[in-house]
């Protein structure tokens, strides 16, 4: 028996609707009435299903209405972390946000993530964000010769940093942080999450090097526990908790 597609595609099965997207745009070379580097709102209307994601709506705009709309996306399935943007004033991944969860009756506001320099439309310069991540040395720092087989770890040891291994570096947390917005001095939640992942790893021996870097006025102590990061994280990482665990280690001296 061969499986045959007998039933016609149920396009009408999911209700379709017209949604309005108000997108914060910026063209570095200027376009129409807008000077180079000026940011402005532009509205688009797309026909979409309730189960479509914001990314699908953006694709429709880019492919069918305005090819100049610029945004990043790679895997489009919530794994690569390229398409973090500010949707209805909350940082989310466009590929994980369904239109039906956004009250499509009103225009959906889409802005680039805040606190990083905008290059074009929804694309920001991620370099300051990655620079902070590099500073905390996000790689295993073991001592002694490499073992012949895996570095073993008990489930309990793994459990301590399991949450922070989920980070995909989308920058949703860091660009939701009100302290990060102020002057760019703060490392940002993501860098601390990245450090947490190694500090609490029993196989790593560079904990105190990383803690020394984070024990800075612009390090963990700049965190005001606003919880914006925890709320923004599309992976559900308890970011503020991770930051507090690093603070606790610095206060008690015990990992």
């Amino acid at each position, binding site marked *: 028996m061969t499986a045959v597609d007998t039933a016609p595609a149920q396009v009408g099965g999911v209700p379709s609707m017209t949604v309005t997207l108000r997108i914060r745009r910026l063209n570095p070379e200027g376009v129409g009435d807008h000077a180079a580097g000026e940011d402005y709102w532009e509205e688009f209307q797309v026909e979409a299903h309730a189960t479509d994601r914001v990314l699908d709506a953006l694709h429709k705009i880019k492919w069918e209405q305005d090819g100049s709309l610029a945004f990043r996306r790679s895997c489009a399935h919530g794994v690569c972390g390229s398409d973090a943007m500010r949707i209805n004033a909350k940082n989310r991944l466009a590929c994980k946000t369904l239109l039906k969860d956004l009250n499509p009756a009103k225009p959906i506001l889409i802005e680039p993530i805040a606190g990083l320099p905008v290059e074009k439309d929804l694309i920001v310069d991620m370099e300051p964000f990655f620079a902070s991540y590099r500073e905390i040395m996000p790689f295993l720092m073991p001592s002694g010769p490499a073992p012949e087989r895996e570095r073993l770890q008990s489930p309990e040891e793994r459990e301590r940093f399991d949450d922070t291994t989920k980070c995909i570096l989308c920058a949703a947390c860091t660009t939701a942080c009100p*302290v990060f917005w102020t002057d760019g*001095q703060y490392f940002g939640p993501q860098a601390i999450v990245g450090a947490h992942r190694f500090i609490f790893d029993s196989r790593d021996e560079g904990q105190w090097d990383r803690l020394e870097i984070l024990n800075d*006025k*612009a390090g963990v*102590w700049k965190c005001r526990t606003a919880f914006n990061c925890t709320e923004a994280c599309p992976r559900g990482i308890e970011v503020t908790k991770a930051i507090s665990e690093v603070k606790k280690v610095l206060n008690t001296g015990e990992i």
Partner: protein
Amino acid sequence: MTAPELSQPMPRTRKRMNATYRWWWVFQRVSGVILVVLIFTHLFVNLMMGDGVSQIDFAFVAGKWAAWYWQVIDFVMLLLAMLHGTNGMSYLINDYARSRRSRAILQAILGIAAVVIIVLGSLVIWTFEPCPVDATGAFLPGVPSGCPFN
């Protein structure tokens, strides 16, 4: 046509945590917990016990401050609340003041305000006369019923 220059992020100035800063950080947490207890006790005693909010007049305050422990409790509350609030505001200024100059000015205003309020409040609490008398030596109207204390 050339693209506008992107504004560079401010280079990070390495400022290690020092002992004073850490002391204030711990103080902020500890004082916060103590203040929750003190403030809710204060609200409960003043607003819930007895006749509630309508009982608060000169005699009520005088009656409380005639007891040394209320003086101590209110003084501790004043001190912790002012230091906790001042330190928190100071964090905010450090976070949000753009220039060195505006930061220095705002910090100075904050420091002066804190000192004035703490000194003034302490004077009121510790030099308070619960049973004021007029020129003839008789109690003024409105003194608490227990006068003279001690």
